[in-house]
C-alpha cells in the first residue's frame, strides 16, 4: 500500500518530466476557460492513478493512457466547472504569448494545428496527439486497445483530413 508521501513524490516526478503531455492533451481537447477545467481533471486523474502504476511498465505510456482516457471521458459538469473556474480565477489563460514576429508566427501555426485537431472526433484527436508526441504505432495500439495496422490506417487517413482542414482555415 502506497503512502501519500510516496504518491506525492511520484506525482511530482511525473509532472516534472511529462507535463507537456498534459498540456498537449488539454489544448487538443478544450479551449479557453474549459482548458483549465480539463487540465485540472487530467492532473486529478493522474494523481488518482499513481497507486495503480506498475513500475514494470513505462511511465510515459501509463501517463499517456491515463490522460487520454481522462480527456476522452471528460465532461463539463456545470457545478463542478463553476467551482473550479472560481478557484482558478486568478490564473491567466495560458494562450501562448507573442513576443516577437517569429514566435508570433509559431504561435499562429500552433493555434492552427490545435484548432484543426479539435475539429476531429474525440478518438481521432487522441490518435493524432499521440502521434505528434512521438508515440509509436505499437504503443498507440497498446494504449487504445486497437491493432497496430488499424492505428496506421486511421492515422494516414487523419493526416489527409487534417491537411484539408488546415488548408480551409489557413489565411
Amino acid at each position: 500500500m502506497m503512502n501519500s508521501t510516496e504518491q506525492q513524490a511520484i506525482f511530482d516526478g511525473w509532472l516534472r518530466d511529462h507535463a507537456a503531455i498534459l498540456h498537449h492533451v488539454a489544448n487538443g481537447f478544450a479551449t479557453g476557460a474549459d482548458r483549465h477545467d480539463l487540465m485540472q481533471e487530467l492532473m486529478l486523474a493522474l494523481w488518482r492513478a499513481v497507486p495503480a502504476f506498475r513500475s514494470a511498465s513505462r511511465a510515459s505510456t501509463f501517463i499517456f493512457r491515463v490522460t487520454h482516457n481522462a480527456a476522452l471521458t471528460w465532461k463539463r459538469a456545470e457545478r463542478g466547472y463553476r467551482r473550479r473556474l472560481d478557484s482558478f480565477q486568478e490564473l491567466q489563460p495560458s494562450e501562448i504569448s507573442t513576443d516577437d514576429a517569429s514566435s508570433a508566427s509559431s504561435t499562429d501555426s500552433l493555434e492552427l494545428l490545435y484548432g484543426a485537431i479539435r475539429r476531429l472526433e474525440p478518438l481521432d484527436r487522441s490518435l493524432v496527439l499521440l502521434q505528434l508526441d512521438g508515440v509509436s504505432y505499437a504503443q498507440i495500439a497498446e494504449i487504445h486497445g486497437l491493432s497496430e495496422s488499424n492505428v496506421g490506417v486511421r492515422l494516414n487517413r487523419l493526416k489527409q483530413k487534417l491537411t484539408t482542414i488546415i488548408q480551409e482555415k489557413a489565411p
Partner: protein
Amino acid sequence: MTFDDLIPAWNSSRNAPDPTQLERYKAGIAAYLGKEYRDFLVHISMAVGLTLFLAGGFVQYVRSGGAFDASKEWGSLVFLLLPIAVAAWFVRGFVKHRQAHPRYDLSIKDGLRALIDQNRLSRARLRLSMGVLTGAMTLLPLITYQLQLVGKQRPHEAVSMLAVFGVAYLVSMTWQIGKYRRLLPEKARLEALLASYE
C-alpha cells in the same frame, strides 16, 4: 500548407507548459483534494452516525427492557432492515463489477467498457433505491398504525411523522430522478465513443 508543415511548430518551445502556471494548478489540486477528503469524512461520519443512532438506539431500547413485541411492531423492524439490505446489494453489485473488469486499465477501450458497465450499475442502484424508498413510504402508514395500537404514538405525532418522511421522500426522489436522467446521456456518449473503436 499541409499537416507536416505544422510539425515544427508542435515541437517548438511555444508548445510547452508554463512552469508558473503548472505550480498554480498543483496548488489548486492540493486544495481540491483536501476539500474532497474532508467532504468524504463528513459524509461517511453522517452515514455511519445515523445508522448507529437508529439501529443502536433501537437495540439499546430493547436491551434496557423497553417494550417491544415483534408480532405487533414488525413494520418498524422491516423499515430498519431495508437500508441494510440495500447496502448489501450495493456491495454485491460492486464486487461483481470488479470481477467482470479485472483489468480495466489495460487499454482505454477496456476502460470504456468498464465505465459503461459502471453506468449500468449506477442506474440499477438508483432504480433499486427509488423502489425501496417507495416501498418504505407505503409501509409508513402501517408502522404508524402499529405504533398507535401499542400506545407508542399519538395521532398528531403520526401526522408529523408522515409529513416529515413525505417531504424527505419527495426531496430524495427528485434528486435521484435527476441523477438517473443525467446518467442516460452519459451512457449514450460512452457507447458512441466505444463504437468509434470498431
